[in-house]
Each structure stands twice: as C-alpha cells, then as structure tokens.
C-alpha cells in the first residue's frame, strides 16, 4: 500500500510499504477514506517529539471502511468508522475510569520502558506518534491496523459525509475536553490562545458549555476570521499587548479561564520566545511555551488554566510562583477521546458544531509531502488539510472549490 512516512526533520515522503495484517483477535483493518494532518504532526515534522524513527507511518486523524476483522472484534466488514487517535484497551484501571488516554495496556512491553524513563510512567498508545506512545503505524495511508477495535471506533451513519465526522478522531474531542477542563461557569470570560483547528473547536465548545464570552488570540488573519465567525472576540497579538487587552476587557481581573491551544512551538517575537528558540536549537530545552507563560500571567486569581496544547519534556522559565500565588487550577492531558465520541456525534447530528468551515484543502495522499510543507509554512492559507487516498496526484481542491462549503 502507499503510506505517508516520516524520514527525518522536515522530511516526509510517500512510500510503498507492506499492507497491515490482523495480529490480535480484537484487531480490525480499515481502508482509509479520509485522513487529516494535525497540528501536532507539525511537532513531528519539526523534530520536536523524541522517539521517532525514519520510516514511521504517521497520521492519527483518520476514518474509513472496515475491510477485515479479528475474531474478537465487534465491527463488521463494510461499516464506516472514525477511529480515536488514542489506543485504549477498555479494561484496565484507567480505561474503567474513562481516562482512556492513560490506558495501561496499549503501549507494548517493548516500547514502554523508554516512555516510563522519560515520563515517570508509560504513556498510553497512539497511532502514528513516536515510539514513546507505542510505535503504531498511523492512518495517513491506504490501510491501517486498529487494535482493540471493539472499544474505540465510532460507527458512522451513511448519511453523514466524511468531513462532518472525521474530526471526532481528535481535534473535536480535544477542543471539547479543553473546554470541559476549564470548568466553565455561566457567564465566564474564557481566553483561548491559538486559533488552529483545536482552538476553533475549543471556542465552539466553551460557548456551548456556557461561557459568556470567548476571547481568541492568534496572529494569522484567516484563522482570526474563522474564530470571529464562530462567535469569539478576537485579539491579534501583533497589534496589542495581550495581557493589557485582556485586563481592560475584564475590568482588570483577567479571564476566568485560560486555554492554551498552542503547545510547544509558540510563535511570536518576544524575548522569552527568542531565548527558547535558541535553546531549542542547542537541544537544551524541548519546549517553547510562550503562550502558556502568558496564559498563566493573564488568568484571574483563582482561575483555571486548561492545556490541550502538546508538550514533550522540560520547559524553562516556567512561572511556577505566579501559578501558586494566584491559586490557579491547571488541567491538562491527551484527550480521552472514547469518553466523548458518542455525545459529540449526536451533537454533530443536531447541528451544534461547525465542523467544515475550517477545512481549507482536500488533497491526494500522494501529495502529502507538499501538503506538510504548506501546513508548516503557510498557516494563514492552510487552516486544515484532509488527505484522500485514491485521488490522483495533483488533484488538490482549495476551499472555494469544495462543494459543501
């Protein structure tokens, strides 16, 4: 089959690789129909995530048709399913508590040692995301093997097109989880850093969960425009001092909840970020957490900080005293996707979410390398890319040509 592979920093190539096979009874094999490139794939692209090996198949946002099942799978051939990016057994202590992303079985014995060394405990498994999370092949491919297929995959009714439901795999539940973690009270002002796909779903989720107002922060005009369309007030950090603006918009107290949808590679020409850039080049830090630092300083006393943004290791100049003195509550973590998919599918069917405005491009799987370059370098024009196996190379559709938008 053809598959998108990571070959090194800023090196993505589409290769012919062996097809996946059923290995365990609970496995299923999918034929992929849609697979998106995630913001966190950029951390792999930039080489910020440890534990990648040349030749790894990437991609953790995907859906497709079931073509083969093991004896323990509850799926049937021909069903259309969306697959959560978190691989979860459904039976361990963590899965029973619905902390699916902390699954204690999905990271195999062979790969969990390194994960345990770095994190203190082995992380749960995930598709296409480094060997610290299990070393599973991802879904930017024609086919994928899905372990524990009786637990994760969400069966999709035939009348729902791929674009409406694909994001149940990661960014919709991640935005929802980010807002849930912000413990929003009615009327709250919620500030969201980053208007990428996760930020855009966080904005929608925060409003649905009762926020009185959402203030979104970014610097790309197209992304800010999308945030505004979805109901947020917007701040371009290149035009204002973000903390001053947030204070002045909240009578000096600051937002009740601050959500960091940026993660480890903050943009911005600020002294702390420049220092982080230099240090990252010399491998002395793994993070550039400018947005998170700002969120902690901006948050009101006794407020909540929610961190869906991905971080990989050790951060520098972390405002710990500020966190403590202001009495902030911090919640974070990879999303327990399986906890939310049923509820969110229903909400999509009820028309509660706009899942398609953010999609800027549909492209053939064969054009993945070029698409990663655009996704990395032209974030104003490329707000979300969906790859389609089977499309002929070069058949790229930009947003205005996509029929349903």
């Amino acid at each position: 089959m053809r598959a998108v592979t990571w070959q090194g920093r800023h090196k993505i190539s589409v290769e012919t690789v062996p097809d996946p096979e059923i290995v365990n009874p609970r496995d299923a094999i999918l034929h992929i129909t849609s697979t998106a490139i995630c913001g966190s794939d950029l951390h792999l692209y930039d080489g910020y995530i440890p534990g990648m090996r040349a030749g790894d198949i990437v991609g953790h946002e995907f859906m497709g048709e079931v073509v083969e099942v093991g004896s323990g799978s509850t799926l049937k051939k021909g069903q259309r399913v969306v697959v959560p990016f978190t691989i979860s057994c459904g039976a361990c202590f963590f899965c029973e508590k619905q902390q699916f992303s902390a699954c204690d079985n999905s990271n195999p014995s062979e790969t969990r040692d390194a994960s345990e060394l770095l994190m203190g405990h082995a992380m749960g498994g995930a598709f296409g995301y480094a060997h610290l999370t299990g070393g599973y092949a991802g879904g930017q491919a024609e086919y994928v093997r899905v372990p524990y297929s009786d637990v994760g995959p969400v069966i999709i009714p035939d009348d729902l097109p791929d674009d409406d439901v694909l994001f149940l795999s990661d960014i919709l539940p991640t935005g929802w989880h980010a807002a849930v973690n912000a413990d929003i009270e009615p009327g709250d002002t919620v500030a969201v850093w980053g208007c990428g796909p996760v930020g855009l779903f966080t904005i929608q989720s925060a409003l649905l969960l009762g926020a009185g107002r959402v203030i979104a922060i970014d610097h790309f005009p197209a992304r800010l425009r999308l945030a505004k369309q979805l109901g947020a007030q917007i701040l371009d950090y290149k035009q204002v001092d973000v903390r001053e603006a947030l204070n002045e918009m909240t009578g000096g107290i600051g937002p009740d909840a601050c959500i960091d949808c940026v993660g480890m590679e903050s943009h911005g020409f600020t002294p702390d970020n420049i220092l982080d850039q230099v240090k990252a080049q010399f491998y002395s830090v793994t993070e550039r957490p400018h947005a998170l630092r700002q969120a902690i300083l901006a948050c009101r006393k006794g407020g909540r900080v929610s961190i869906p943004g991905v971080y990989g290791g050790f951060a520098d100049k972390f405002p710990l005293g500020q966190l403590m003195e202001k009495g902030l509550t911090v919640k974070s973590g990879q999303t327990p996707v399986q906890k939310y998919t049923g509820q969110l599918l229903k909400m999509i069917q009820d028309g509660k979410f706009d899942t398609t405005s953010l999609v800027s491009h549909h492209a053939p799987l064969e054009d993945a390398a070029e698409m990663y370059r655009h996704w990395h370098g032209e974030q104003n024009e490329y707000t979300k890319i969906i790859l389609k196996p089977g499309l002929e190379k070069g058949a790229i559709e930009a947003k205005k040509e996509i029929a349903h938008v």
Partner: protein
Amino acid sequence: MRNLFSPSAGRGTPDPLAVAAVGASLALAGIGYAFWRRTRNAETDRDDIATDAPHWTLDKPSARALFGKSVLVNRPRTDLFAAWKVERFPEFMENVVSVEPLGGGTARWTIKGPMGREVHLVNSITESIENETISWQSEPESEIANSGEVRFADAPAGRGTYVTLILAYDPPAGKLGRLGAKLLQREPEVQARRDLHRFKQLMETGEVTSNASPSARKSESPVEPHI
C-alpha cells in the same frame, strides 16, 4: 533506537565533541553520586530506621542481583493465581522456550539468552500458598543460581490485584555480563519486567499487546512487534 531517549531525535547529528563532553561530565557526576550514596548508605546501616518500603526497593548491598516489580491487574486475585501456571507461561513469557516438569515441584526451564544462546535453569517450588504466593529456589545444576517469589495481594477498594514478581540471581559473567545482557535486552530483569506486563495485558485484555504494523523500514515485518 539510538536516539530514543534524546529530545533531539531526528534533528540532525549532534557534534561528537559535544556528545563526548556531555558523556564525560555524566560519568564524573555518576562517580560522585556513587561515593555520596555509599557514604549515606553506611550511615543508614548504623541507624536502623524502620521503613515500610518493600525490601527490594532498598539500596542494600547484596551479593545477588535483586529485582522486584509490581503491577496492578484489574482482575480478582483468584483468577490471576489460577492463570499463573506452567502451561500458560509461553503465552506471556516471551523468552521462555520451554518448561519441562521433573516431578515434585521441580522443573527444567529453557530460556533465550544473549546472542541466540539458550540458558537452562532447574528450579524447585519451595512454597505455594493458594491465591497468595509462589516461591522458588534453584537447584545446584541450574546454570544460573536464582530464587524468587510471585505475590498476589488485593488492591484497595476493589481495584483488582497487585501482582509482584521478586527475583534474585547471580548474574552470569558478573556485573559486566549483566550490563552486556541488558544492552542486548536479554537480561533477566528486563525479561521479567516485560513478561509481567504481558501477563497483565493478557489478563485484562485477553491478548498480548502488539504494535506490529507496517513501516518503510525494510528490516521489519508488519506482523512482528518492533521497538
């Protein structure tokens, strides 16, 4: 694999001089730490403070390599004790080639060692308490002198069972041999820890977790697990 622990994985090759300098400082720091530990341990030995720490976690000098590992398994203690039997060992003990019962609780074990060699152990069960513990001790003809115990204890609040594996053994070829075997992933401690996790996976999920899946690396098969 070489870059697995490094935050710089995949970001070009680091300067070898810098790597050497880092290595030298780490080695120095390690020696300093070892001396400090030795002094501290000597002090602790004199003043015998009671501790609730499991004995295998204490930094006591010991003639044998001592290893202990606990896992929480979300199943009742009786189920797990019943499953911990010779016939099922090949399902989760990856390095065990065969276990041949010799009668009277004694068995001859064939285990995969480093560099494709096989190691033979002859172990006898010294004590078995239903649903609680199984202890063993090697016989003189065993190629590696070893003793050990597996314990099953209720986890609090109906959360399943703590399964603990404790293993003491004379490392073949001493400490250096142990280091070498560790590098080759054929060291008893590494094997036992992984097998214990496979037991947990099998008991909780009904299968041994595998990341077997395709990659663009020619050396790998889509049906074999990889690191």
